[in-house]
């Protein structure tokens, strides 16, 4: 739901921070889902969400109510997630091997057990998501998991529509290729 922050801020004698609190209430879970898909880690996603809101708070006076808060927040959360991943790589070099760990943990043969089978799909997708480039991951996560139109993603990423589409196509192709041994879809 879109919030009319201008109305709330302008017309009501709000206690300090209340207006921004509305923004947090309305967007926390959505941003968590984006951050989680970007980082692949729950704790990192929590940190990214908090960092996103802190950055948003500092630039709140630059938010234009006539504009789209989803573009504004998605731009911050995706940049925060990318920064976070880069910092994490520097901080914990072993995380560089995360995708390889996934790959080792996953057998290429489908298992008969359903939960194990689901777990394999999940591990494969998460491992492949981690391998995508920053732009591919951002475009794909915003389109596929947050349901944002490509036009809006282009605005969020400050990129041409054609470039966003190509990033999504590449991401889909890589993710489908990773699923092939398990789901066996036709290519």
């Amino acid at each position, binding site marked *: 739901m*879109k919030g*009319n*922050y*201008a*109305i709330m*801020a*302008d017309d009501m004698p709000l206690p*300090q*921070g209340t*207006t*921004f*609190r509305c923004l*947090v*209430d*309305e967007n*926390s*879970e959505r941003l*968590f*889902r984006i951050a*989680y898909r970007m980082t692949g880690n*729950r704790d990192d*996603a929590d940190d990214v*969400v*908090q960092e996103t*809101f*802190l950055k948003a*708070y*500092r630039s*709140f*006076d630059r*938010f*234009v*109510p*006539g504009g*789209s808060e989803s573009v504004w927040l998605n731009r911050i959360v995706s940049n925060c997630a990318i920064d976070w991943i880069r910092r994490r790589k520097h901080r914990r070099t072993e995380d560089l091997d995360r995708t390889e760990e996934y790959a080792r943990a996953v057998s290429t043969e489908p298992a008969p057990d359903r939960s194990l089978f689901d777990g394999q*799909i*999940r591990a494969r*997708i*998460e491992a492949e998501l981690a391998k995508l480039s920053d732009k591919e991951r951002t475009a794909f996560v915003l*389109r*596929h*998991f947050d349901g944002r*139109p*490509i*036009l*809006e993603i282009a*605005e969020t990423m400050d990129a041409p529509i054609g470039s966003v*589409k190509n990033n*999504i*196509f590449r991401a*889909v*192709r890589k*993710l*489908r290729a990773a*699923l092939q041994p398990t*789901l066996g*879809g*036709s*290519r």
Partner: protein
Amino acid sequence: MNHYTEEELILFYYKESDHGAEIEKHLAVCDRCREVHGAIEKDLTAIGNLPFPATGSDYSRQVWEAIEPRLDAKPIAVPAPYSRSWRVPMAAAASLILVVMSLWIAYRTGVQRGGETIDQEIRRQALMTAVSMHFQSSERLLVDFSNLDRKRSIDLTGPQKRAASLVSTNRLYRRTADLHGESELSTLLDELERVLLDIANAPGRITPTEFTTLWSRVERSGLLIKMRLQEAGAREGRAVSEV
């Protein structure tokens, strides 16, 4: 028979294709494309079904509690509405000048009549006249909005800029109406402000269905009729409730 590429079918899956209806027809008769589309759908659905960790119903409260101590002590700046455009402050300033001029003329009229301060009725008339002009601009926006081409996705960026500009002016009049105890006029301006904000805050591009939903809200409010009645009342010197 020409076949669709994987990329075109991916866009179709995301409902982002410009040729959605054609692809749908094609899929009904082409086994090969239907098979490729089915595989894309199967894979992307599997990816979309990936579970998320449970956050709990009070997740936003947890986030707030984590960030609140780290927020700056400085007061939160109220979002400066549309401050990136110089046109809006100009429009608001022009409106203010108009109101002040109207009140001054009314005052002078009052002075000439009896040398007394502004008569309440004259002040009200001055406000009504100024607001009528604002209503006319708003009506033009709503009429143009209703006439947008609804055959495919609708670009709202033009109407949104006009709506955003009118919001600032509207606030000024609403506050003036409140100040002078014009509660009916204030209510009408409040209704208009909500509609203008709905348009200004909508996505830049919406589907015909979303447009119909948005426009039906405007129609249900009867706003166009109310504004026209108010204008007629202002011309005849009556209050909104009398109209």
